[in-house]
C-alpha cells in the first residue's frame, strides 16, 4: 500500500450524492476521482505513475499531428475547389480563423484561472467554508446547461462579438478548475497544516508554502481540463460572431463544400490535441517532485 499522502488522488472526499464509503470497494476512490473533475478531462488515469517527460511523450503526438496536417495539405492542394470553396480558404482566412481560435482559447483560459483558483482558495478558508456547498450546487446546475444554449442566451443579452464568446467560455470552464482547486486543498492532511501552523508559519505562509504546492497536481489537472474545454467551446464562438475555426466548419456545412468543412474540422482536432499535449507537458513539469507517485 502507498502511504496515503503519497498519492494526491486517494483522499479526495466523496462527491455530492456519493455515499461516504466505509471502504467496501478498493477501487472506488479512484473512480470517483476519475470523474469528479468531469467529463472532458483527458488527464491520465490516477493509477498510472507520473513520470518526467520521456522522449516518446515529447515526439509521438506532434509527429502524428504533423503527418495529419501534411496529408490534409496535400489533399486540399490537389482537390478541385470551386469559387465558393476558394473564397472560404484563400486570402489568409484559414490563418485568421486559426489565430482567432487560439486567442479565444488563451484569453478565456486566462480569465478562468484568475477567477477560479482564488475562488477555490477562498471557499476552503475557515470563514467562508459554509459557502462551498451552495457554489457546488450552482456549479452542478451549470454543468447541465448546454454550452450552445449558454452562448445563445449571452448573445441575446450582450450582442454578438468575440467578448460574448469569451464570457460564455469563461463561465463554462470555471467549474472544473474551481472544483479541482477545492478538492486539491481539501485532500491535504490536516496534520500537515497544523504542523506548519505549529512551527509558527502564518496562515498566508501555510497557504503558499504548504497547501498550494500540495494541491498543485489537482489544480493543474483542472487547468488542463479548462484548456481542452475552451478549445471545444471556441468552435461554438462562430454562432455568436466570435470567429474561430468553427467558422470554417459552419460555412462548410451551410454551403455544402466538403473541403472547407473537412479542413475546419481537421484543424480544430489538431489544435485540440496540440493544446492538450502542451498542457500535459506543463502538468508534468510543474508537479513538485516530492509528489510524484512512485518517484
Amino acid at each position, binding site marked *: 500500500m502507498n502511504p496515503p499522502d503519497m498519492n494526491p488522488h486517494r483522499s479526495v472526499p466523496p462527491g455530492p450524492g456519493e455515499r461516504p464509503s466505509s471502504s467496501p470497494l478498493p477501487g472506488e476512490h*479512484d473512480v470517483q476521482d476519475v470523474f469528479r473533475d468531469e467529463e472532458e478531462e*483527458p488527464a491520465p488515469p490516477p493509477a498510472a505513475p507520473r513520470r518526467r517527460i520521456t522522449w516518446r511523450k515529447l515526439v509521438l503526438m506532434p509527429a502524428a499531428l504533423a503527418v495529419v496536417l501534411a496529408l490534409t495539405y496535400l489533399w486540399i492542394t490537389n482537390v478541385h475547389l470551386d469559387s465558393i470553396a476558394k473564397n472560404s480558404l484563400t486570402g489568409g482566412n484559414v490563418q485568421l480563423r486559426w489565430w482567432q481560435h487560439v486567442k479565444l482559447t488563451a484569453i478565456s483560459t486566462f480569465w478562468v484561472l484568475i477567477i477560479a483558483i482564488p475562488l477555490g482558495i477562498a471557499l476552503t478558508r475557515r470563514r467562508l467554508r459554509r459557502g462551498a456547498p451552495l457554489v457546488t450546487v450552482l456549479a452542478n446546475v451549470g454543468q447541465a446547461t*448546454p454550452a450552445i*444554449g449558454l452562448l445563445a442566451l449571452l448573445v*441575446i443579452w450582450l450582442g454578438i462579438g468575440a467578448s460574448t464568446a469569451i464570457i460564455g467560455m469563461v463561465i463554462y470552464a470555471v467549474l472544473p478548475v474551481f472544483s479541482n482547486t477545492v478538492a486539491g486543498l481539501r485532500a491535504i492532511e490536516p496534520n500537515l497544516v497544523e504542523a506548519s501552523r505549529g512551527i509558527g508559519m502564518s496562515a498566508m505562509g501555510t497557504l503558499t508554502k504548504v497547501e498550494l504546492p500540495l494541491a498543485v497536481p489537482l489544480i493543474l489537472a483542472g487547468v488542463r481540463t479548462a484548456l481542452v474545454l475552451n478549445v471545444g467551446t471556441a*468552435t461554438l464562438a462562430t454562432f455568436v460572431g466570435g470567429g474561430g*475555426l468553427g467558422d470554417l466548419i459552419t460555412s462548410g456545412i451551410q454551403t455544402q463544400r466538403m473541403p472547407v468543412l473537412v479542413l475546419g474540422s481537421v484543424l480544430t482536432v489538431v489544435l485540440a*490535441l496540440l493544446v492538450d499535449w502542451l498542457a500535459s507537458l506543463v502538468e508534468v513539469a510543474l508537479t513538485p517532485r516530492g509528489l510524484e507517485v512512485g518517484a
Partner: protein
Amino acid sequence: MSFWEYLGNRHQQLLTDAYQHVSAVFQCMVIATVLGILIGIVTYRSSWGGSLAITTTATILTIPSLAAIGLLIPLVGLGVPPTVITLTMYGLLPIVRNSIVGLRGVDPSLVDAAKGIGMSRIARLCRVELPLAWPPILTGIRVSTQMLMGIAAIAAYASGPGLGNEIFRGIASLGSANALNQVLAGTLGIVILALLFDAAYVLLGRLTIPRGIRA
C-alpha cells in the same frame, strides 16, 4: 409574447423536440453502455490493453464535438447518422474508463473465493465482478448522459433531432421577438431533462446496486 405564452403556443413542437432529444440520447446511451462495458471486460485484464483503451478514449474526448460531427458529414451525410455516431462515440468514453477502473478495483481475493467454490469464468464475471464494479460504471453512465445532452444540442446544427433545433432557430432569428423565447425554451428544456435523467440514475442505483456494498 411572454415566455409562458410562447410555451403555451408551441408546446406541441417543444414536446416533440424534447421527446426526440431524450430518445436520441437514451438510445445512444444504451448502445454506448453495452459497448463500453464489453470493451472494459475485454481489456481490463491486460495492462496495456486497458491503458490503450483509456488513452484512446481520452484522446477522442479531447476532440471538440462540432469537429467530430464535421468530419462525419462527408462520410455519412447530414441528419440522424452523424448524430447517433457522435453521441455513441462520446458516450463510450466515461463508461469504458470507469468499467476498467471498476473491474480492476474488485478485490482479487473475492474472485479467488468465487473460483474456489467452483464458479466458472462467466459466472465469476456476471455474479461477482460486474456487480461489484457496478457503482463506478453507473457513475460513468451518469457522466456520459450529462455530456450527451449538451452534444445532442450541437448536433442539431447538422440537422440532428432534438431541442438544439430550438436554440439554433433562436440564434438564426436574433433580434426578433421570439429569439429569447426559443433559446430559453431549448436551453431550459435540456437542463430539466438532464436533471430528470440524473434523478432516474439515482433511483436506478438504489434499485440495482447490490445491498452488500450499499452504504
